[in-house]
Structures are given as C-alpha cells and as structure tokens.
C-alpha cells in the first residue's frame, strides 16, 4: 500500500472532533467496519457517520474498501503515526534545548 502525503491541517481538523476520534477508536477495535456497524456502537446516525468518514478519508486516516454492496472503512494508522511522531519529536527537542538554556544561564 502506498501512502500519499496529506497535510497536517487536515489530520488535525479530522482529529479535533470527539465523534471522529470515537469512530477511529471503534475502527481500532475491529480493524474495519461499515458505517452501519459504527452507528450501532455510537449515539450518532449512520448518515452523520458517513460524513465523518468522508473527513477522515480526506485526511488520509481511513480508506474505503468495497465488499460487494458493503463499504468497509479501514484504518490507515501510518498517517496518525507520522503526525504523532512529529509532535512528540518536537516536544522532546524543546525539552532538550530548554534544559541546555537552563544549564548555560545557571552556569558559573
């Protein structure tokens, strides 16, 4: 599977919504699911779930797989992983730099 590069803003917009995070968590449990199956699990209509899936797909967080008449949505964890890694890496870099500033400023 190849991964097109998306944009972080789409990923963050997609993740800013708690319902979409819940949808991802449901997919996380099952690996893949139809909109109907997700709607059974969450207090949200199937129609709304389909709209949320469109946002998640646009951000590269899920992809659609057709099985006959059913449309399954499958997680694309690589998108989330690279985003998360980027922010985690930036945070730990800053911790390291701030510690260095402290050492220099407090130095004799």
């Amino acid at each position, binding site marked *: 599977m190849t991964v097109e590069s998306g944009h*972080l803003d789409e990923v963050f917009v997609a993740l800013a919504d708690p319902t979409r995070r819940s949808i991802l968590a449901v997919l996380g449990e099952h690996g893949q699911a139809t909109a109907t199956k997700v709607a059974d699990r969450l207090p949200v209509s199937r129609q709304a779930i389909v709209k949320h899936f469109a946002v998640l797909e646009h951000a590269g967080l899920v992809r659609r797989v057709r099985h006959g008449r059913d449309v399954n949505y499958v997680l694309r964890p690589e998108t989330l*992983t690279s985003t998360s890694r980027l*922010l985690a890496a930036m945070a730990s870099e800053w911790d390291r730099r701030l510690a260095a500033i402290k050492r220099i400023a407090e130095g004799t």
Partner: protein
Amino acid sequence: MSEDTVIREIVVKAPIERVWEVLTDPKHVAAWFGHTAEIDLRTGGAMAVGWEEHGTVNARVEVVEQPTRFAYRWNFLNNAPFDEASSTLVDFTLAAEGGATRLRVVESGFTALPLPAAEQEHHRTENTKGWVAELDELKDYAEGL
C-alpha cells in the same frame, strides 16, 4: 485552537536578563540550539542556525521585546531559503519569578507543513493496540497537554 501546538516550560534559577541573553545572543544560541548561529536581533531580521551534521536552517525574527518575549519563524526544511509558507513559529516568553525566570516556548504552525510520507515500516491494521496508544498520545498533544 491549539491542535498543532507544542508547549514546553522550564524554570531557570537566573535573572530574566541573563536568560534573555542566553536565549538571544548568537554566542549562546550556538551552544544550546545548533553549532553555529547568526541573529539580526530585530523584527524582520534574518536568523540562521547551523549544525555540522544537518546544515543550516534559515529563520526570520518576528518579535523582540527585551527581556520578556522573543519569537521567530524557522524553516521546517534544512538548507533552504527562508520560506514563510513552510515554516513554524517559535514564541518564547520570559517571566521573572523572584530571582528566577520562567521560560516558556510555544511552537505552532505545523498544520501548514507537508506531512512526511509515512515511514516504510507499515503498521498493520490488525496491530491496533499500538495504534490506539498513538491516538492517545496525539490526543494529549492536541488537547494542549
């Protein structure tokens, strides 16, 4: 909204003017940030930080309010001319607390950056446990820690 923001803070046992000096004097910046540093310390001034192993990152000074605030935008990519569209904002604030100084850094603007193509080691969708942990981790950052 602060979904794409990294916030870090530290208390330095030194007066605010001293911390300001370490933060903005190229001689010190070369020590805590990179291996070399050039800073034209005024709004719009050019800034460059160099690493022996990575090359140079170009930046632009955005705010100079001695001794309480220093901000710059820096390129996400090394060895490229400064490009605002592919840069993030780094914003330092300093606050005196007795004889010490609280130093906070906020880096933001990751939203505009191209997402790095996913690493080759693909996580399998079956491997959801690690993935859910990643989601929690990202959520913590997204919610501003």
